[in-house]
């Protein structure tokens, strides 16, 4: 077999194939549910209900989507430049650390100053964490996939070390967790009485800003050029390495905002299990959105819905909640294949 470019793909192709990919994903899911001895339709119904069936469920989904929008954006912007940042998990924790360190250090600043200060510190910390692997890449040609992956493990151990050492909450009854942020420094609720904090609004703003950067600024143009064809970009005078460093700071900063938002908006303190893999799930969020910043919002809601829905379904129907991860991994693979096939057709010989 051979792949032949499709010159002008029709609407049936560009929309039909991705739809087919999603349908295929749910067929796989249905088979897995059957393997667990449950009814697929009832199970999927429970997932939908658990994700959006009530005000509580919907808010839970929005809350879960918030960090995923940030990590999804982080990865979308990095992948746009073909910078394989698989270390959003580490950058998230760096952001959380910066938030906690600053937030608990009794500076006595008013909240209106403290929030931007904590967010700014988080962005810087996250950017710096990604800067290391990127400098190794541009200076020495070390593949960033492996280094950013390994950094995740190092960062988690580092956090654990701090939580059992200098950052340990003396009132924590021996649990490895940090002191909580003062009440005033927590992000307020978006609407009084609803369990949804300002982090979600910040995530939406971030998505719009990233979209504007990508489409309207020279930096965005440079990022896309470097990602599409670094040789041509370099030849045309685009400072490729500098663009990669800027991309790294942007990407790492966005992932770190997930940590900032989780600590200051939701949890109040830092623990070792702050993120159940938001950094990795961000890859799926970004890929399902085809790296489009506004699409990231939609796909983060979808992904969050599946996770929240699967959790609640699992309690009710006894199908393990890991089905959510399987569905998403399958969707990822099916989607990249579908996108390829919108542009190429398979021919024999």
């Amino acid at each position, binding site marked *: 077999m051979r792949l032949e*470019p499709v*010159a002008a793909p029709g609407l049936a192709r560009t929309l039909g194939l991705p739809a087919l990919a999603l349908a295929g994903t749910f067929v796989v899911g249905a088979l897995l549910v059957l393997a667990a001895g449950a009814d697929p339709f009832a199970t999927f119904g429970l997932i939908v209900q658990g994700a959006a069936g009530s005000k509580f469920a919907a808010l839970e989904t929005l809350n879960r989507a918030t960090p995923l929008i940030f990590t999804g954006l982080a990865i979308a912007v990095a992948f746009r430049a073909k910078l394989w940042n698989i270390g959003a998990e580490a950058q998230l924790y760096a952001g959380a650390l910066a938030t906690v360190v600053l937030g608990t250090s009794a500076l006595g600043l008013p909240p209106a100053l403290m929030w931007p200060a904590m967010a700014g510190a988080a962005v810087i910390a996250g950017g710096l964490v990604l800067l290391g692997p990127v400098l190794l890449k541009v200076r020495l040609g070390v593949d960033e996939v492996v280094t950013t992956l390994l950094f995740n493990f190092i960062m988690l151990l580092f956090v654990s070390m701090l939580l059992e050492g200098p950052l340990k909450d003396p009132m924590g009854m021996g649990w490895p967790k940090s002191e909580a942020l003062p009440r005033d420094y927590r992000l307020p609720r978006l609407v009084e009485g609803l369990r949804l904090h300002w982090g979600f609004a910040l995530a939406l703003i971030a998505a719009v800003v990233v979209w504007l950067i990508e489409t*309207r*600024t*020279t*930096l*965005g*143009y440079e990022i*896309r*050029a470097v990602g*599409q*064809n670094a*040789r*041509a*970009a*370099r*030849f*045309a*005078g685009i*400072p490729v390495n500098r663009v990669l460093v800027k991309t790294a700071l942007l990407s790492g900063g966005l992932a770190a905002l997930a940590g900032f938002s989780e600590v200051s908006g939701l949890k109040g303190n830092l623990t070792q299990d702050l993120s159940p893999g938001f950094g990795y799930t961000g890859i799926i969020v970004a890929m399902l959105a085809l790296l489009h910043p506004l699409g990231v919002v939609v796909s983060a809601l979808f992904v969050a819905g599946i996770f929240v829905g699967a959790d609640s379904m699992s309690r009710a129907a006894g199908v393990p909640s890991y089905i959510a991860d399987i569905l998403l991994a399958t969707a990822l693979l099916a989607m990249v294949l579908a996108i390829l096939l919108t542009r190429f057709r398979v021919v*024999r*010989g």
Partner: protein
Amino acid sequence: MSGPDGAARDVVLRLDGITKRFGKLTANDRIDLALHRGEVMALLGENGAGKTTLMNILFGHYTADEGTVEVEGRPLPPGAPGAALKAGVGMVHQHFTLADNMTVLENILLGTEPLWTPRLGRRAARARVEALSRDFGLAVHPDARVATLSVGERQRVEILKALYRDARILILDEPTAVLTPQETAALFQTLRKMVARGLSVIFISHKLNEVMAISSRVAVLRHGRLVGEVATADTDRHRLAELMVGSEIVTPAPGTATPGAALLTLAAVRTAPRGDRPGLQGIDLSLRAGQITGLAGVSGNGQGALADLLSGLTAPTGGQMTLGIAAVTDWTPRAALAAGIGRIPEDRHDTGSIADFTLTENAVLEGYGSRPFSRRGVMDWTAARRHAADLIATYDVRCPGPDARIRLLSGGNMQKLILGRVLETGPMVILANQPVRGLDIGAVTYVQERLIAARDRGAAVLLISEDLDEVLTMADVIHVISEGRLSPPFPRGSKTPAELGAWMAGQGFDHAA
């Protein structure tokens, strides 16, 4: 054995009614060809005439929509790569298919033994390769790493690959494009030895004098059709040219140059080595206003190093580079652009453009950072789009519009857009690296005329080409490059092709070094 009946028995390869369509384009239209034992048949046609498609069908990389291929009377199964090889057909591609990090012997042995054989029979193989080298005059060391070989040597490895597999038919795709005249003569010697032993050769080319020199028969392709099949003895260059293009070939007449001041000067400039290839070895070069300087040489002898240097991709490691009267210090592609150097890169697909970007985005690839295309970091896409539309109109770029992706364009139209992007800034120095390679005749003439016009308005043009004929036609003054060294300038007409070929092979540099 002579006479029409004998000839018919002696057909070793027969293509019968081969048709291949790609969408609306018919790349091969009912082509019938017969190759006889012990002959060199030339397959003549310009770029895009369908030669490559035909060969891809023969080798099973494509399946023909209609028609059959027979080798020595037996039909080849369509779309089965390897069937042609097994039937005794060998091919030397224009872009060599060698693994650089492996040895000559390993490249030759690849795929010749069943995969599950427990051992490679290296010793016997080496003896056979050495015998073949001797018999056919193909000197090359079996244990050399391919990366260290010259272009001529690599071609010999490709021919050895075919001979090692007992090929009875050898197809060479534009084999002389990368050789010196002397290497070409040696290749022809080898080919004559082969046909003398009963092998048959298809020689694909668009160079008429070589076709006249080596072939006994010529088949001409145009727009996917076989438009003529003649005995070489019964024709001449002009008639072949007319068959190939369909009309008289108009070669651009560069006229006389009126050279002015040196706009860019290199004095004893060196650059770092590139992988296994040497960098520039202390070269002196002066590009004058109103003059086309041609750079001739076998590929891989430092053309890339010089082009990268003038493009700003690499900085000199020694010597002095002067632009106008100012010595160059901080040297980047951006600095080169700012200094008024226009650059047409060798690879328009991979370096000159970004395939998935639109024409608009490609049109501002070099100028996006300043007005009118952006201010304070914010792009003005309206201005960019207007610019692209202007280029499309001025440079006759055939395309769906400024929002189309450039990957959809033909090579010629892509090159016209790049040419426009470069020339519209009014550069004083123009680096044109293989500007017409792979283009059809119409586009070739267009690009060459634009370069001549740029010279006539006072620009200094450096034309790098591996095609000696192109350099001889276009250049007012010629340098030869060999292993990173540069010959003195030779004014137009002062050296014969054979003399330049000697320089290309590295002779004459000793006193200069």
